[in-house]
């Protein structure tokens, strides 16, 4: 019934005798009937300038998704004992120590010696522009909560031979656990090292679902819900991207010239990322590729060379073996 009524809405003349043909065609071109209600793209904006490295996102993610704990092993890499994203780790807080060998002294303060005088003469404004302190101190301990980027054009999805990896109605990238056969093609296709096969458990590929089960109920994902400083923000991708650009402007105004956005523009992976970041240094510092490669881009040139090689070899064989 639902199908009929929508057919009427689409104003396509109904010819019952064409029904078998229609069903055959629809398997090739997709069923155009019963479109879902308009659903904006949803994603994460992870603003590292607000991250305090508490790892609450990691724990909230593990709890909600009931993910196994990693075997405890102390790495000696700053405060990062999680090491990387993986099949049972869908949020990972990085700690990058960027501290110079010697304490850098702040710039000289000519006003200081005459502060009392200046204050009594009203030279210090009622609402001072703020002491000349930088927004961040010069010795940096960078923290970033890493997560699946939910690429607009996801290489993992392209690589998936079974159709297990799909785009949801929220335009997120989702691995259907009942369809995945654990081939692992997606693992090598991901330029960020996000997705991994759960070799100790399900033997399927697993990664962040953006808490698909929560989103369906209109609840925000566990990690962003837990983040105390709103370093992880969840929302409509378009609005979040606009907010991210505003935030970048604010930080640059505050003198944080090294701040930059990652994955907001469509240049990364031809379409941008639905889960993007504000970084405080070069992407490579955070172990992010500046220009992530797309494995499928190699398909055309590689096929060309393969075909060419075959042709050349064929010609040679014909020439060589014609006698």
């Amino acid at each position, binding site marked *: 019934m639902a199908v009929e009524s929508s057919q009427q809405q689409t104003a396509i003349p109904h010819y019952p005798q064409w029904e078998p043909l229609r069903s055959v065609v629809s398997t090739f071109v997709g069923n155009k009937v019963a479109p879902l209600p308009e659903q904006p793209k949803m994603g994460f904006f992870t603003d590292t300038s*607000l991250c305090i490295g*508490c790892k609450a996102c990691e724990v909230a993610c593990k709890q909600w998704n009931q993910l196994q704990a990693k075997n*405890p092993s102390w790495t000696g890499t700053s405060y990062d004992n999680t090491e990387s994203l993986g099949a049972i780790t869908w949020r990972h807080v990085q700690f990058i120590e960027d501290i110079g060998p010697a304490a850098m002294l702040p710039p000289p303060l000519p006003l200081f010696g005459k502060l009392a005088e200046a204050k009594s003469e009203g030279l210090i404004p009622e609402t001072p522009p*703020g*002491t000349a302190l930088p927004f961040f101190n010069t010795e940096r301990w960078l923290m970033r909560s890493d997560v699946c980027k939910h690429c607009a054009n996801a290489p993992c999805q392209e690589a998936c031979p079974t159709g297990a990896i799909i785009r949801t109605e929220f335009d997120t990238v989702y691995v259907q656990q009942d369809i995945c056969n654990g081939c692992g093609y997606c693992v090598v296709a991901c330029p960020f090292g996000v997705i991994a096969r759960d070799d100790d458990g399900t033997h399927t590929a697993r990664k962040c679902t953006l808490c698909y089960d929560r989103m369906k109920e209109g609840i925000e994902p566990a990690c962003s819900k837990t983040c105390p400083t709103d370093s992880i923000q969840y929302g409509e991708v378009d609005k979040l991207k606009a907010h991210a650009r505003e935030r970048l402007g604010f930080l640059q105004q505050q003198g944080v010239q090294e701040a930059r956005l990652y994955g907001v523009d469509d240049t990364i992976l031809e379409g941008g990322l639905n889960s993007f970041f504000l970084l405080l240094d070069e992407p490579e510092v955070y172990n992010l590729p500046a220009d992530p490669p797309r494995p499928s881009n190699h398909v055309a040139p590689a096929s060309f060379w393969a075909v060419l090689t075959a042709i050349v070899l064929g010609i040679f064989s014909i020439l060589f073996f014609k006698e």
Partner: protein
Amino acid sequence: MGSNMAEAHPVGFANVVKAKELGAKVIHVDPHYSRTSALANMYIPTRAGTDIVFMGAIIRYLLENNLYFHEYVLHYTNAASLVKESFRDTEELDGIFSGFDPETGNYVDQGSWDYQPGDDGHPLTDPTLQNPQCVLQIMRRHFARYTPEMVEQVCGVPREQWEVVVRTLVENSGRERTSALCYAVGWTQQSKGVQIIRTAAIMQLLLGNIGRPGGGIMALRGHASIQGSTDVPTLYDLLAGYMPQPAAMIEPQEQEAKDRPTDTTWGEASGKHASALSQQTLEEYLSSSGQKFGWWSNIPAYMRSLLQAWYAEAANEEDGNCVYRWIPKITGDHSHLATTYDMLDGKVKGYLLFGQNPAAGSTDSRLQRKALQQLDWMAVFDLYETETASFWQRGPVPHLDVVDPSQIKTEVFFLPAAGSTEKSGTFTNTGRLLQWHDKAIDPPGDARSDLWYVYQFGKRLKQLYAGSQEARDQAIQALTWDYERIEPEPGSRILDDPDSELVLKEINGYYVYPPGQTGGPGSESLQGPLGLREAPHVPNFGALKVDGSTACGSWIYSGVYPEPGKNLAASRTPGGHTFLQWGFSWPANRRILYNRASADPQGRPWSERKKYIWWDEAAKKWTGDDVPDFPINKPPDYTPPPGATGIDALSGSDPFIMKPDGKGWLYAPKGLRDGPLPTHYEPAESPVHNALYTQQSNPAARYYKGKPFNKLAAVGDENYPIVITTYRLTEHHVSGQMTRWMPWLNALQPALFAEISPELAAEKKIKNGDWIIVSTPRGEIDARALVTRRMRPLRVQGRVVHQIGLPFHWGYKGRVKGSITNDLAHMVLEPNVSIEEAKAFTCNIRPGKLL
């Protein structure tokens, strides 16, 4: 300073991050670059234990350059009060104040610290601030040697960095702006912790940052509701609501003839033995604990209401004296840590531990474990088996800490406790905010809430002593003890869980004899006496009476539950400038204490920007964004008539109503055991000599010299040249007794590590990740080395001082194990509050592993 807020209080720190977004400047001064430092506008590494020099130099700078908030300081602080001529400062006595008795190590005679009393008992003042005996001039002399050069020499902080802090503070204080200070156990866990906080208070008073929005000193508490445990106290020296626990006096001291209440400035007797006055009767207790002037003059009403809550009708016998006799009187230091030595000496028979893990979480843990062996019995109420509950099985390093269970007589009971979601009650947070939480689920198995255990314990004690004829057992026989639920909690299988709202009602207070009736208790026409269940609630502590007609478990919480069905701690209505409908903040739901100071002496806001509480001339009352912390109708120009007492003795421009003089105390004429002004002393263990005075460390601290397991390194001992500090990580909670059982958390921080600088690592030939042994005169532990530039060597008195830092979350129980950092710490206690010095002591390190 003294706080790693982002790691220990991440949710509270979210507000700091928010403030920074709005333009606030965040400066972190700490020995250890932490996650807090990473978010700060400025981070300044400093040597652990030198905070008083850092801030003392700021105080000197403000005084010498006339940068303090003149009007605020003159009217709202005791800057103009005159101190007795007999007072001798550390300047004159090379690091100690007058009244010190080197034999007992105490300031036995604090009389010379007092103000010069005028005829009416109020202190004499000099509003010109020129009198050499006025507080401001005494401070000027006292802090003269706290120079920026001393900051460089003692703290190891370059002058330029310190200057940025001063400049930022000065620019952001005054009429238009305020600055706040946050501290935590980085200050309190020092042998002079209280005096460090005093230094901060002086600095904030001089800058006019107390009682005003955006100002203040935030004491970040270490556990959920540890604020509550001092308000309705689990402390040995306090009754509810900061009333002192009565003290026994072994030998009655003769009161000196000159002692009349008007000889002091708070209306009590003074003299050599003032602190040892007898408190055997209620009158004696009230006269020595109460004050003639200020809010504490109400202590008789609060004390009588407390006795009424505990003993109902019996409290009316002999005007309360009968039941007052039953209240235990203290005979010395019975604090947790001081009791450890009594335990070691076999003087303590039994030990009840609710959520406490001294075998790993308390200072000098090896001593703690030895002391546990001397007990007859011990009961541990916890979620998991803790190090304390299993101290008889093994030690941290079996071949070094040999434990032979057959030789331990202590009988250990382990009782499963309920988690916070498995019981209802209130949490009181850092902001004095009470927030109710409901029970979400029954605790598993036999686990029960602490309230259930204590209630059952009380019921059984009453049963046990029901037939006793001993006078000493009357205290248990007469105790009101009925918190039974009338109806079982819906959906719960635990039928005998006490009613926690009934407990809250007792804390709030109720009318034993409802008001509106003439006469008093005993009069026959009266309705009453009413019990806890049926009695009407009191609306607030203003209703508490001295005549026995009201009962109240803790006066400062009164008003939290003003009528049936109106538990304000459970209210969650956001909105308004100060969220007054969200929870309940004691006292009387005030969000900022002493907020009268947010208006000028005439009652006008200091500035439009910092408007908070002001005098409404038309309505003849105080009004604003908060509940005024002041008599609501007392006009700003009120001057007390001669002979006025209590709160009426304070003028309309005296905001600090808890003080007998109504002033913020730059100088503390009374109440501290180690001096009226903060003085820099080196920690009990230090690599350097005190650069300011001959007196090396706090003379009044308790050192337990000659006691076992508490050897200290000598000053500058080359065997222990490295400064060590301890701290927490976000991933675990205290000794890890709850968190080290959680695999998700264990994966985040699986092992104990020591943070050391690359310079020290190179010197000791240690690589990142190596095992190292950390040693102090108390013992040795092993840990992994985390070599990081976040730890920095400092230049102190011409030489390099290395500092290392260790978290203290590990032990020998739980799913991840590790050495006990507290095995390294010593037992030297701060004199006022008996807190250990775990944040600054000395050690040495070498590569290696103990096991």
